[in-house]
């Protein structure tokens, strides 16, 4: 596709439900990032994939959060037993380059999934 696609656009979950958020990156992009953006805040890093390898998951808030990218393209962020504090916009970003310690290339963001936990 032309850009990063995220689905669903909006998700309402009851507390305790499991949710799965999908990200379709730009075709051929090697790097994929997930961010969490609370209302009125900047994006907070969750995890990073280089192709299918999850190289950094230091930002995942708890073991209820799990991300995968099994074939190096589409990624899914799963949140188990959702809590009210999980309510936020979840952003996915991709980049055509490998992330190194010195590169800070352009990230292409999707429009996000707005998760509301009631």
């Amino acid at each position, binding site marked *: 596709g032309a850009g990063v696609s995220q689905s669903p656009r909006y998700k309402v979950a009851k507390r305790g439900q499991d949710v799965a958020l999908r990200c379709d990156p730009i075709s051929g992009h090697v790097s994929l*990032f997930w961010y969490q953006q609370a209302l009125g805040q900047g994006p907070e890093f969750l995890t990073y994939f280089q192709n299918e390898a999850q190289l950094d998951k230091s930002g995942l808030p708890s073991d209820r959060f799990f991300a995968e990218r099994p074939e190096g393209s589409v990624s899914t962020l799963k949140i188990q037993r959702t809590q009210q504090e999980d309510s936020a916009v979840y952003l996915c970003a991709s980049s055509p380059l490998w992330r190194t310690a010195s590169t800070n290339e352009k990230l292409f963001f999707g429009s996000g999934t707005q998760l509301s936990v009631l």
Partner: protein
Amino acid sequence: TQLLEQSPQFLSIQEGENLTVYCNSSSVFSSLQWYRQEPGEGPVLLVTVVTGGEVKKLKRLTFQFGDARKDSSLHITAAQTGDTGLYLCAGLNTGGFKTIFGAGTRLFVKA
């Protein structure tokens, strides 16, 4: 942990006015980026500054990277209503893979 602090948090101005927003850190960054985010959308990259003291211009927007590479500023000349949005600065976390973001400056330009 490296932090990026942005100021002001919120700015409301009239069309035609000039403004400057700031991004500061106690840490050195190899580069800093500025993104703009509109409601309901993801951030879009405006510029990357790499060299200390560097100034980049993008139409009415002027970006500067501090000499010590710890801070950056964004100056908008003759603001337009289309400039309304959340302006985020971002930097690469040292030794890691993550791009970290500031909390942003929310700009509202009134007609």
